[in-house]
């Protein structure tokens, strides 16, 4: 860069100065023309990243005025419905930020909206990765890092939600206290250690504060760093398409196109969050009042990303608590914690399980279209429905009021959905995927339906099909999917139990399968067209 003869002298001198001290040209050479494929679904992770930047910026401002302390004080500020009310310092300082620091309410609201958007963006980014199979080799580790980011995001969100010490978050903490106490053997101790004694005590806000502003953000930043490092090492995946191969990546170079688009996108996300913060109230803690263990508000819910666990708590029936020698096993409570372990644990092991079942140990840089992995897509939809059944249950009371239904019936509906929904979702999704695959085959073999009806000389009516050009055909045909691999004997000629299990799963996953069109089939179809004028539909293999 220092040798650029066209640069103005001052710039040239500056870059020379930097180069001689940092050797930055190596980095520019490495990253400057790195290629990023352009597709809207590849921008979702960036939304999370940019929301996180907004969170760090706005959060830093908030720490300048927030007092993480639970000492008693009396509120004396402009919000008359709380004048003279006994509140904690944390709550009073949050009100002070809201009403007496110029721009303070804006900072609070943009921080909270950014947190909600951060989690939403993380979620759909993770779904995109899942449904396209982007977690496959060599990206399994980065997928696990991503799962860690979701878990840390939830931790960051919950600790932040609890800081203002208002009635809503206080009741949320009380639920956490109840959850902890339900853990067999150590629960009571965990609760006393977290709260510094009995609930609510006077320590919890300052403890959550150090978790919220130091420990969790540090972990988030570290994980984000690792996550992005892996994106650089692996290079981005790409959709199947003409000119796209497993050995290349096609798209826009970082400098200038991708950097410009990504940078512009950052400003647009920041702007969008500003609009939300400026126009829409979020977490109006002045309405909730200070925390007091006796009152509670109708519609007491956590922020959306904790909602599914709260909903699960609502669905579990009371009879699931039982006593062994007088000691409670509260299966009506702590499974909400287990559900999180199951979800995150399942996500962590999934890439390895899938690779084990399919026996596919190759690298994959070309994404699967979701329809081309019907069982995976169907399982994903089943998990989404399972999650949403719990999630919706957390707002069952509001749904009941809104639609004039019975609160109790809502619980029964969601309990049913919890079990039945995933099964139906699985079956329907798998059928839809296979149907779409057949349609793709049909189009690849016989062309698009043109809508034009023609009459053949012998009187038969037929729809004219428009042939595909080779770019379009490539997109529909250039993929390979795993097929059922029966149990294989090992070196000593024996079939192990694990291998039998693998084979059973392989059958479940890959038995129903639509073969991609091959060149030979296409040639045959063309030949048939030439003779008869129409061909046969794609066959489902069994």
């Amino acid at each position: 860069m220092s040798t650029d003869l066209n640069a103005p002298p001052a710039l040239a001198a500056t870059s020379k100065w930097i180069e001689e001290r940092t050797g930055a040209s190596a980095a520019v050479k490495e990253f400057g023309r790195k290629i990023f494929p352009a597709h809207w679904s590849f921008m979702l992770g960036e939304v999370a990243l940019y929301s996180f930047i907004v969170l760090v910026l706005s959060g830093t401002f908030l720490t300048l005025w927030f007092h993480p302390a639970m000492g008693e004080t009396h509120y004396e500020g402009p919000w008359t419905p709380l004048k003279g009310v006994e509140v904690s310092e944390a709550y009073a300082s949050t009100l002070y930020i809201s009403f007496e620091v110029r721009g303070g309410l804006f900072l609070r609201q943009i921080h909270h909206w950014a947190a909600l958007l951060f989690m939403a963006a993380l979620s759909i980014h993770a779904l995109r990765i899942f449904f396209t199979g982007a977690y496959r080799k060599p990206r399994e580790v980065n997928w696990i890092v991503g799962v860690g980011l979701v878990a840390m995001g939830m931790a960051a969100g919950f600790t932040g939600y609890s800081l203002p010490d208002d009635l809503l978050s206080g009741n949320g903490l009380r639920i956490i206290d109840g959850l902890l106490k339900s853990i067999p053997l150590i629960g009571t101790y965990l609760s006393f250690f977290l709260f510094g004694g009995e609930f609510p005590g006077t320590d919890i806000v300052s403890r959550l504060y150090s978790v919220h502003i130091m420990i969790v953000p540090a972990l988030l930043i570290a994980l984000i760093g690792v996550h992005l490092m892996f994106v650089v090492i692996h290079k981005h995946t790409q959709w199947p398409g003409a000119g796209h191969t497993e050995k290349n990546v096609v798209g826009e170079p970082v400098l200038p196109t991708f950097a410009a688009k990504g940078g512009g996108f950052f400003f647009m996300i920041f702007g969008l969050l500003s609009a939300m913060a400026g126009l829409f109230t979020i977490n109006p803690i002045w309405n909730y009042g200070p925390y007091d263990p006796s009152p509670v508000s109708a519609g007491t819910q956590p922020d959306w990303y904790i909602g599914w666990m709260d909903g699960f708590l609502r669905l579990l029936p009371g009879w699931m608590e039982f006593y062994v020698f007088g000691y409670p096993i509260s299966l009506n409570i702590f499974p909400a914690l287990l559900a999180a372990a199951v979800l995150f644990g399942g996500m962590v092991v999934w890439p390895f399980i899938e690779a084990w079942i399919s026996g596919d140990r190759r690298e994959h840089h070309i994404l699967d279209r979701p329809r081309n992995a019907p069982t995976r897509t169907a399982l994903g939809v089943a998990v989404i429905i399972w999650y949403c059944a719990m999630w919706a249950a957390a707002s069952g009371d509001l749904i009941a009021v809104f639609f004039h239904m019975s609160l109790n019936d809502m619980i029964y509906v969601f309990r049913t959905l919890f079990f039945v929904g995933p099964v139906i979702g699985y079956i329907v999704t798998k059928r839809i995927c296979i149907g779409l695959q057949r349609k793709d085959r049909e189009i690849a073999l016989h062309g698009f339906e043109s809508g034009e009806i023609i009459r053949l000389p012998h009187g038969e009516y037929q729809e004219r099909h428009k042939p595909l050009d080779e770019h379009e055909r490539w997109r529909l045909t250039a993929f390979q999917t795993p097929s059922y691999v029966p149990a294989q004997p090992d070196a000593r000629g024996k079939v192990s139990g694990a291998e039998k299990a693998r084979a059973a799963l392989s059958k479940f996953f890959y038995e129903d399968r639509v073969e991609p069109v091959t060149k030979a089939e296409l040639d045959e179809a063309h030949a048939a067209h030439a003779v008869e004028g129409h061909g046969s539909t794609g066959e489902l293999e069994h």
Partner: protein
Amino acid sequence: MSSNQHSGSTAGELEVVNGFENPGLPEHKPRITDVEPAAEKVAERQIAAWFLLSMVGTIWFIVSYFLFPLDGQIGSVRMQNTMLGIGLTVALFSIGIGIILWAKTLITDAEVSEDRHSIPGSEEDQAIAIEIFNQAKNESGIARRPLIRNMLIAAVAIAPLPAILVLRDLGPLPGNKMFETLWGPGVRLCKDTGGVPSVETPIKASDVTIGSAFHVIPEGMNKSEDPLNEKAKAAVLLMRVDPEQLNTKPERESWQVDGIVAYSKICTHVGCPVALYEHQTHHLLCPCHQSTFDVTNHCKVIFGPAKRPLPQLPIKVDSDGYLVAQRDFTEPVGPSFWEVHTRETESR
């Protein structure tokens, strides 16, 4: 790596899949701004206008900061928040649109292909890495000297123990705290006014008419060491039900006063205040997870995730006509915990 501006297939050979040959990248179609200088000029002006608008937004933010002061009225907070929000939105969104338009219309949009490198290092590099490790192993003697190696591992393994030990003082041990509340013989039931003003008004039995629900705290709670901790255990809901409708167990016959019953307000599920009293159905509903308790049947659970009935506070009338507790709850209030049945609650 390839840094060609425009390339169809620089990236290695195009593989054959299912017998089909990869047709390569489609031909790049120029945009209107690539071929028409007039359109290019228009795009340039548009982009400049967006950046100009952004500056207007920033200035509007600064002006709003002073123009819409916080005057102690809530309306001013909303006005300022909205104006600052609009200013920053315009400032940031416009920069974003401007840059992206620049990228979309003026910066070249040809797709470029880059080769992927194999992720594992070359065999040579891998061999060197192994060699380095072996060399380190030999030079340090870590394999040959198990004594110091194992002692090091042991030393490092126990070194974090002090850090864990220090966490011990995060909180006291539970002791009897979960089994004791401020209720005791003769403690008056007082109205909970929500802390403002915190005057404790005792309740006369005659005040509690049928269909009433009183939210109750123990007298003296506000003067106790940790009022909120005490309230978190001692909060009580006092209701009067037509005695005809109460199915009272014989041993609890004396715990009520003419149909006036007092139950812990803390849900036995995860501890939310159960306070939604329906005075005709006599159901108590928890707003957090919808556990429902039947007041006429000693608050046993009739719906939802809670298991244990709400503990009943035995009450009576003192000589002045005020409602007082006979003793503390006979069982722990709130969520189940491991030791819940391990000891009798104190009868002070």
